[in-house]
């Protein structure tokens, strides 16, 4: 830390940067391991395609999603050093992102209900624009 001389009067105290690169490499291996587990689960879904119940598929996908959030946590906290910043800054970044929880629930539920409407009432909710048109194929050649 002594090596660096901030001229910036905005900075009251400096985070401790004297540590080595051990932690960085540790996080690299954590991220790699999480990715490999995700790929393993993804391959499991592929290899067992059509043989698994809906609940198994869904819960496997949720596990993959949680592992992704863990990767996101390590990237933001360690690589972006947000974990070293003071609490107020962390909160102004993280709290607005909580809105995503509601966005995801609301929009995916909406999409799902749209599908249910399509599959009932004699499939009256299908739209031609959602399929590949003959014109698009002709004009491509």
């Amino acid at each position, binding site marked *: 830390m002594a090596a660096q001389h901030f001229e910036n009067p905005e900075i009251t105290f400096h985070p401790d940067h004297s540590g080595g690169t051990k932690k960085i490499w540790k996080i690299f291996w954590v991220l790699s391991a999480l990715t490999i587990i995700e790929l393993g689960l993804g391959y499991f879904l592929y290899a067992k395609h059509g043989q698994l119940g809906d609940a198994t598929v869904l819960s496997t996908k949720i596990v993959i999603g949680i592992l992704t959030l863990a990767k996101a946590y390590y990237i933001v906290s360690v690589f972006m050093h947000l974990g070293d910043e003071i609490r107020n*800054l962390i909160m102004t970044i993280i709290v607005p992102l909580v809105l995503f929880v509601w966005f995801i629930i609301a929009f995916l539920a909406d999409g799902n209900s749209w599908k249910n409407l399509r599959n009932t009432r004699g499939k009256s909710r299908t739209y031609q624009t959602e399929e590949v048109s003959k014109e698009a194929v002709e004009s491509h050649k």
Partner: protein
Amino acid sequence: MGSTAIPTGTKWWSGGKSPFNVSYGKVMMWYFLMSDAFTFGAFLISYGTIRFSVNNWADPNHVFNSFPFAGHANLPLAFVSLMTFILIFSSVTMVLAVHEGHQMNKKGVEKFMILTIIGGAAFLGCQAWEWTHLLTGEHVAMLGDGTLSVLPTTVKMNPWGEALTQKEMMNALSKTSHEQLVAIANTLHHGAENAHHAAASLTNQELINQIATSEIHATHTGPIAFGGYFFGITGFHGFHVFSGVIINIVMYIKTKLGHFEQRGHYEMIEKAGLYWHFVDLVWVFVFLCFYLV
């Protein structure tokens, strides 16, 4: 967190100090990244909504199963894993560059910035290959009128529906025009010029026999939204990678010229690093939404 004692009664919000104890530039980078996270989040949630709303969304293991120089080998998840590891690794070299900056080690910053730039360029190369592969692909799919066509994956065309049954396939073949049958037969033997001429001179029935006895994978078409979302979101991410590489090159040149050494700190490397890690962060979610689930 810092262990330095702060005088009691410090007026954090009266100006001249950063209540967050980081420079203005870094705070603004964080807020920019937060707004960018909302942009990407909105795109991905929109994608999820449309994907949830249809029955026949493309199975990523069928769409993304190729690898450069591997021909037609079925390798789901392989290429995207390579891209993911390239990006994770370039994130590590970036954070090592920031670390060298803290130590005021100019040579170290230069070395790790170069490695980061190479990683970013490698990722962009992979993406260029993947896009080319999809945009120039040849997949036999049945259109709404019941005829077969040879389709690539574009923002208007998606050949990745469910597989046709043998009966559907024969029915569709009988409706398909001579021109399209020749095009389909030509996908069976790539690159053989003689075969192309031969196919054109065959009768419809001969072509149908040839196609029906081959190991062709004909499918229904899928929802056209697939291409728009895939190329839109991976393109927007790729554009971030591209601009990140440009920023990193500028940072490398400024390091090389000694600008940061004169300034007494390498904070610009930290800010470029924040952007670069954000690009990796977004990829983690793109990887999840488009390739894994």
